[in-house]
Every structure is written in structure tokens, then in C-alpha cells.
């Protein structure tokens, strides 16, 4: 059975919301029989020493929190950057965070031996609180697919398909009647256009 490292710093309101999305993956993993959440570095336990110690031991890292083009961030600390991403060599990284597929993902795969990196090349945006239940299922569809025997290509395809469904929901579906329809549409379309997979798309956990 493969094992995943889950990192979700929950260091402010936005990161807390992303952390709550990640929590839903725990039950799915427990039921999958294929992948387990080997370590869940949540809130205060998401420290640089803890991440450094854990990274080599898992087939995949799922990160839910803040990011920049070159870093995945915790509470006032860089949790994953170009100086420690090699600790995830031969494994996969899924970054539900802003911008990290831009530089960190490229560096991880092309210079540090990471098998595959799935993330976003620009800011990750959504309707706060996801009141229409659209963004959490769409964004988490990739990690869910990996937990359920999918490849990285499968995870990318699921996220693309689900984000397109969110676009449609706000463009011409029930979501069009909501006060935040334009924001929902714009966010989903933006996220869809900046989702990126770098590296080995055939990799499975």
C-alpha cells in the first residue's frame, strides 16, 4: 500500500478553508485500500523540520495551503522550496496552492528528480466558503483520483473536467442565479486555465 504525506498548515482563513478540503481525503484514503495517509501535518505540526523529515518516506505529497512561484508556505516559514524539494525525489507532489507549478514544479521535476508535479501556475481562486459546493469537489478530484488508483494524467483530466463543470454551473447552470455567479465563473475558468502537470503523467501512487 502506498502512503501519502498530507501537509495543510491552516495558518489563516484561506488556508483553513483549504485544510478543511484536505480533511475529506482522509476518509477516502482509509476506505480505498490502495493509499493511506501516512502522516497528516496539520496546523501547528506543519513545520519545516517535520516536513523535511517526512518528505522522503512517502510516495506522494498532498499540500493544501499558500504558495508562491517558488515555495509552498506555512505559518511564517517556507515548508517546501527549491532547497528541500529533492527530498521528494522519485515521488509525486500535488500542490493545491497558488502559483507553485510555475517555478517550484519545474525545478522539482527537471532538476531534483521528482516524478510528477500537479499544481497551478498562477493564483488559485474560488468563491469563499464554496456555498454552491462546486470548488472543493472539483479541486479535490485530482487527489481523490490518485487515492483511487489513478495516474497523474487521470488526476489532471479529472480536475480539468470538474473545473469545466464549475464553469458551466455558473455560466449556464443553477449557479447563474447566485449573487456571486460572475466570481464563480471567473475563478473556475482561471483555475482551469492555470492547472498544470509537469513530469511523468503515468505515475501512480
Amino acid at each position: 500500500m502506498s502512503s501519502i504525506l498530507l501537509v495543510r498548515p491552516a495558518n489563516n482563513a484561506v488556508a483553513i478553508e483549504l485544510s478543511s478540503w484536505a480533511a475529506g481525503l482522509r476518509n477516502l484514503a482509509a476506505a480505498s485500500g490502495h493509499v493511506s495517509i501516512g502522516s497528516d501535518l496539520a496546523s501547528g505540526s506543519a513545520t519545516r523540520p517535520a516536513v523535511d523529515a517526512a518528505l522522503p518516506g512517502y510516495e506522494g505529497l498532498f499540500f493544501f495551503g499558500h504558495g508562491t512561484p517558488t515555495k509552498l508556505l506555512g505559518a511564517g516559514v517556507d515548508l517546501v522550496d527549491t532547497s528541500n524539494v529533492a527530498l521528494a525525489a522519485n515521488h509525486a507532489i500535488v500542490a493545491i496552492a497558488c502559483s507553485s507549478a510555475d517555478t517550484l514544479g519545474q525545478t522539482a521535476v527537471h532538476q531534483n528528480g521528482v516524478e510528477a508535479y500537479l499544481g497551478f501556475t498562477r493564483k488559485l481562486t474560488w468563491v469563499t466558503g464554496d456555498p454552491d459546493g462546486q470548488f472543493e469537489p472539483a479541486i479535490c478530484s485530482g487527489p481523490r483520483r490518485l487515492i483511487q488508483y489513478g495516474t497523474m494524467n487521470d488526476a489532471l483530466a479529472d480536475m480539468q473536467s470538474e473545473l469545466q463543470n464549475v464553469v458551466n454551473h455558473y455560466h449556464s447552470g443553477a449557479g447563474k442565479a447566485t449573487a456571486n455567479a460572475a466570481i464563480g465563473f471567473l475563478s473556475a475558468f482561471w483555475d482551469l486555465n492555470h492547472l498544470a502537470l509537469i513530469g511523468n503523467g503515468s505515475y501512480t501512487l
Partner: protein
Amino acid sequence: MNFRHSPKAQRPVHEVVVQALEKWVERHPNPDVPAMSIATSGQFTPRQLLHEIRDRSDTGLLLEEMIETAVVKQAVTLDELLSWFEGEEPNAVHDAPILRQI
């Protein structure tokens, strides 16, 4: 298509977007409750988004780029998108006072 100017109004897109968001804030049931989350930037209420657009802050520029991306990739027309913010049918946008000035 020159996105920098509204195709109907021949006014800078920034101006028509600001106007649309002003109407959005006016009609929004909760203009001071966060409506948009941006990982690494924070949560923004409709009223804050209007200020961000007006000030051309980083978040305002991001929102304008999001609009530009959707329009240039032809996922939606600018008029249609503005009508969602304004809560009006798209054709009504063409008759908005600011557009009649042209």
C-alpha cells in the same frame, strides 16, 4: 478584438468593469461578506473587490486579468460578464447611461 476597450462602448475596460462592480455591490445581499478567496492573498468582500479594482491593486489587476482571460478565450463576452455583475440582461448593458455617452 481589442480587449483594452469595451467593444460596445469604446471605453477602457477598466472603467466599465468598475461601473459593473459598483452595481454589483449595490445589489449584493452581503456586500461586506467575503465572496472571493485567493490562496496567498486572502478573502475579499464585494466592496473590497470594488476598491481593489478602482485602486488597480494587485488583486484588482488579477481580477481584470481573469476577466480578460475569459473574454479573450471566448468563454464569455464582456457584455455578458458585466451583466452578471450588474444583475441585468446583457442587452440592458448596451443601454446603460455610461455607454450612451459615447
